[in-house]
């Protein structure tokens, strides 16, 4: 079957099978920035935004989201136009191996858009479904707080 999606603001049309997940369709079509960790919706590595809300893309059938907006980390910012969230993750040490980072960046983007000044508990809850084995989360929580500060126009410290 065939379907069009709005991916990072651009309409793209892909061919896929009825049982294919959003994750596999994205990856097969060059969106290798979306990673895979468990294929069961239990680790959060493959999270993308679907109409602005975080979803595990391995649990979403591509056929069920035709026409909808999908945002990957590349839609948040790129080399030439970095999003402050991405800067914050690097500066605060929230990136170690970086395999979970694309998902954490999009989750943070979604969180801060709805809740620009999240409490510690808000941040923890937002990231709950998103495993990281490298950082121990301390610097990821710091990264989100730094990102909130940067986005609200505050200084880095």
């Amino acid at each position: 079957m065939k379907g069009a999606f709005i991916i990072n603001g651009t309409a793209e049309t892909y061919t896929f099978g009825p049982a294919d997940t959003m994750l596999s369709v994205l990856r097969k079509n060059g969106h290798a920035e979306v990673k895979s960790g468990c294929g069961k919706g239990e680790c959060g590595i493959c999270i993308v935004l679907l109409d602005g809300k975080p979803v595990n893309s391995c649990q979403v059938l591509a056929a069920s989201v035709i026409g909808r907006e999908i945002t990957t980390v590349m839609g948040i910012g790129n080399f030439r136009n970095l999003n402050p969230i991405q800067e914050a993750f690097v500066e605060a040490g929230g990136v170690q191996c970086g395999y979970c980072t694309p998902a954490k960046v999009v989750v943070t983007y979604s969180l801060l858009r709805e809740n620009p000044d999240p409490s510690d508990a808000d941040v923890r809850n937002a990231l709950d479904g998103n495993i990281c084995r490298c950082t121990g989360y301390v610097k990821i929580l710091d990264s989100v707080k730094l990102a909130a500060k940067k986005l609200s126009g505050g200084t880095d410290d």
Partner: protein
Amino acid sequence: MTDFVHIGKPCGKIDGISLATGREKFTNDFYIENPLYGAFLYSPVPHGEITGIELKEAMAVEGVVKIYHYENTPDRLFTTAGQGFPEPSPYDTRLFDSRVRFAGDRVAMVAAETEDAAQEAVKKIKVEYKELRALFDPEKAADPESPKIHAGNEYAKIPVPYLPEKNIAAIIEIGFGDTEKGFKEADFIEENTYKVHYASHAATEPHAVSVYFDERGRLVIITTTQVPFHVRRIISSVLDIPLRMIRVIKPRIGGGFGGKQEIILEPYGALIAWDTGRNVKIVLSREEVFQSTRTRHPMRIKLKTGFKKDGRITALSMDALMNNGAYGSHSLTVLSNTGSKVLPLFNKIENLSFAGKTVYTNLPVGGAYRGYGATQGYFALNQQIDIIARKTGQDILEYCKKWHIKEGETSAVFEALGEGKEGVSQTVKSCKLDSCIDMGAAEIEWYKKRGKRIKTEDGWITGVGLSIGMQGSGIPLIDMGSASMKMNEDGSFNLFAGATDIGTGSDTVLGQIVSEVLKIPLEKVLVLSSDTDLTPFDVGAYASSTTYVSGTAVKKCAEKVLSQILDVASEMLETDKDDLKTEPEKIVSAKNGKNVSYSEISIYSLYQANQFQIQASASSVLPESPPPFIAQFAEVAVDIETGRIKPLKFVSAVDCGQPINTVLAEGQVEGAVVNGISYALTEEYIFNKRGKMVNPNFGNYKVYTAADIPEIKTIIAESYEPTGPFGAKSVGEIAINGPAPAIANAVFDAAGIRLYETPFTPEKVWRELIKQGIV
């Protein structure tokens, strides 16, 4: 000593932005043209002989190209342990074997045009097994009546005690003094049995391999590895492919923790490619990673200590039984580390013995796992020390400060116990453990909380516990790292390092070392690491070696480059080399103040006179392995009603020498701490009666997330290791060793129960509370 420009700074990782924007490629992200996909069939039985394989139906699946199994693959023994050569692990593994040894052992592999076809064909392979009696209890492994798991032609490449006919994969016995006499002199004897359990590394990126042929028909293997050079060597030897025909590339790696120090997938990818002439992709599922790759070796430790009323230990004997599962990966060295990284810490013990045995069972296979035996040993030792301090009425902080190894001191254990051979004698040159204990205690408010059993709002009881430890920095006289460098016209430098960044940030750390030597900004160091065609050799990322061993090679290399820069500058400025000094990106004559920039020097050397490429290479193998030290403090709350443990705060104060990058050093500690807490409390391999792990997913194998962590504090002590690059020691492994014993000691402080066996599940804790009459 500390007026560094680039060292000890919290600069961001050089690959940070590219990772955070999703541009970096991991193994499975590379475009491989028209590959075959590999998929495995695993044994459902724990122990058996394959009596028949029927492939007809599987081969009939559209797109299937070939199915590999024991009858059509090389019958060659090797070890999957990605160690130096010859490996100190037994050669007991074949690509495929007629005998299966655990539920999860590889039986066959399908190569097909699509992933779906490969998976479908796997389901259609019919295998008949003659089941053999299985051995699950490591305590019974050496019994004469137990089934023999490896009783054929397996062998150890190096001369170590290896007795497969008794299911023994390694034996270690060392000691000094007279323990019998020591126990007789003691006022008290304390003897306990401690057990630590299986665990998965759970790196977020599952194992994968991508293989293609280059223009000249050489095999290029992109793989999730910690040991690219060992991968090349082992593939060459297992598949009889000339080493020169293999190139191994390590791309970005999604975490290793030891799990990717194993040659788990690469020979299979290479096999399909070399056999069919096709490109290949194999990616493991999470379930496969849990059930069939490698794990932390479970261990049972009997620890006996005799001590006087003042707490002085008159004798210590440690008896360790390590379960290696079906194959003997790291069987000797993890076991030896349980002694060699743990027992030197209390170095005033005059009578000591360490007896260790590694055995085979029909269970999943152990392998390298962050901590590497020390995690197991410290679980026992730190509880034992807590018990001794309590029994002799002493403040455990003062007790530890009195008895731990100090600067200028040594331990006989260093020399007695190495990795696969005798160890290397060394004197500790930097140890700031006392200040670590003091700073950590202040942060956790030890004296306000210890023994106070303060109640939380919801009625849980709190307690605090301590764990101290040391690790090493590489394997002395064995681990070798090397690097080369060249200079470019704009005063930038290429650094080619064999060292393997598996997400730790070692590319950044090595770049900072170059920055410091040459006084250049970090962005002027272009780091390329771990490509067997392009970079010089390095043993890889293990044994906490990269900063110390590879970092020393990089520092030497940069110093050689600097010397050449000074030669050229001396020619250009017509000044004696000794009169020159290095300033940021330029060389200045101390005599007349004239200077030349790095860019001018490079252009001069490449184009203008006496032309040559400013370039150098250097290797490093070090005669010692300076231990980092750590003091870790847990504050927990225990729910007496349910047995639940809630970690409230966890403090680590670490002496890692001079940290090269403070934010990355803290990140190493914090990542290890959370892995350690998660291991102590929730992570568990649950087996059915057939030895099959039945919870191979993150839903049922609970790894801590951001919502679960307690307050975590990391303190880095001021320290300087004179033998290390810019004073650095290691920091990658040490912090994983403390959480389990610190939490166990905190639970005792809160509730008066001893937890001798991990993980501390509510059920286990509750049963112990009942047993002690506390509930």
